[in-house]
């Protein structure tokens, strides 16, 4: 049994897809493929643009080309959010730069 993604995240991603594609959110499930939702690669670019805005993340081009379903999208966003959180934590705990560092 695969791990179920966070319901709140699924709901947010679904809402972004629905708004971006002008389709009712209730027609979108975690297991919907983009093909079923009639989302092509150009639509995918618009969805990814809105997801970047929503979550404050950058999604690489390679990632966009491989998106085929809502589940893949949620998993990809989840991974990027984890990385973002780790990066933020690292910057908070980073030692302050030495004052005589003139590099």
């Amino acid at each position, binding site marked *: 049994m695969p791990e179920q993604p966070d319901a709140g995240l699924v709901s947010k991603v679904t809402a972004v897809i629905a708004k971006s594609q002008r389709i009712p959110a209730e027609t979108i499930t975690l297991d919907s493929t983009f093909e079923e939702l009639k989302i*092509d*690669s*150009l639509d995918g*670019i618009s969805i*990814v*643009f809105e997801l970047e805005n929503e979550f404050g993340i950058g999604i690489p*081009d390679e990632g*966009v*080309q491989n998106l085929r379903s809502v589940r893949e999208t949620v998993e990809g966003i989840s991974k990027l959010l984890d990385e973002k959180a780790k990066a933020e934590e690292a910057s908070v705990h980073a030692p302050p730069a030495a004052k005589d560092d003139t590099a």
Partner: protein
Amino acid sequence: MNRVAVTGMGLVCALGNNVAQCWPLLAKGESRIRPLADPGAPPYKFRHGAEALAFRPLDYFSEKDLLFLERFAQMAAVAAREAVAQSGISFAGELGNRSGVITGTSVGGQFSEEEGYVRLYRENNPRVAPLTIPRTMSNAGASRISFEFGIHGPCYTVSTACSSSNHSIGQAFWMVRNGQLTAAIAGGSEAVFAEGLLRAWEAMRVVSPEPCKPFSTERRGLSLGEGAGMLVLENWEHAVARGATILGEIIGFGMSSDAHHITQPCVDGPANAMLWALRDAAIEPDAVDYINAHGTGTQTNDITESHAIRAVFGPKAESVPVSSTKSLHGHALGAAGAVEAVATLLALEHGVVPPTANVSTIDPACEIRVVHSEPLAAKLEIALSNTFAFGGLNASLVLRRAERV
């Protein structure tokens, strides 16, 4: 029907400011796709482009003239001057009424438009520059050429994204062939390195993070370029009668619409444009010695174009040399067809196929003979030059080497 001679050519792009500067680099396959002079702030996701850095407007125009001319129109006029000078044609008298100017551009004067928006929306200044309209209009280049040379016949601009210039050259070709015009200046120009436009291309996610690699297994998108290409097309008999040097001939033009998708290409549309161009030229695919491909370096274009070439050429697709000169001068969008028509005519004249650059391994799914890395010396008589545009608009030209007298 009249034969249509090419009696003049002009070229401005990242490779140089004229044909003499550009050809040696084309012939060697030396790419001028380089890191951007201004990488943007924040930096664009892509770092490279083919900027015409040696093009300095004040070398060609007075400061007063430049008030009215944006970069795309400047480049159009400079390329036209070179073509007309080489042709030796004068449009004085009745010939001026029997001649036309047809240019192509995708976006026209983008810089002035963006400057206007900066004033309006960033600086809250409602006073937009008074020359914004004549500077931005897509026909600014065509009009400049018309009044610089006293050409009083049809003068207009075609805007069909990346097919603009093949449409403009094709229409001018037909008008001269049908006898509506005795001569025409035809081609196109584009100046793409304006921030707003670059941000829009960035958002489309089709620009390669490194110099483009058309037909390669490692291709990751296109590289933008700027420039202009112009041809003097002339009624063959008229050219011969005045003793002009004939540089080449246009013999066919075909166009089609995919009627399919706003950005995703299909095989049938491009194949039909090629087929109809060959039919227009009254030749069989076997007669074609070289194909200057649209070859943008995007995943989708290159595979689709390969399939379309196979659909038209059958087994010959494995032997006819194909190259994408976009890997050298970048994708000049609305000017692409014109820049590549000049490159193709030069290839025919010199018997050299300019190689596709930046490529080490051809994608095995692209089952065509891509010339890459090294130029190919060959006896070339007839070439096909393809452009395919967003919106599904395809246009192909058939060009022939000048007859040796």
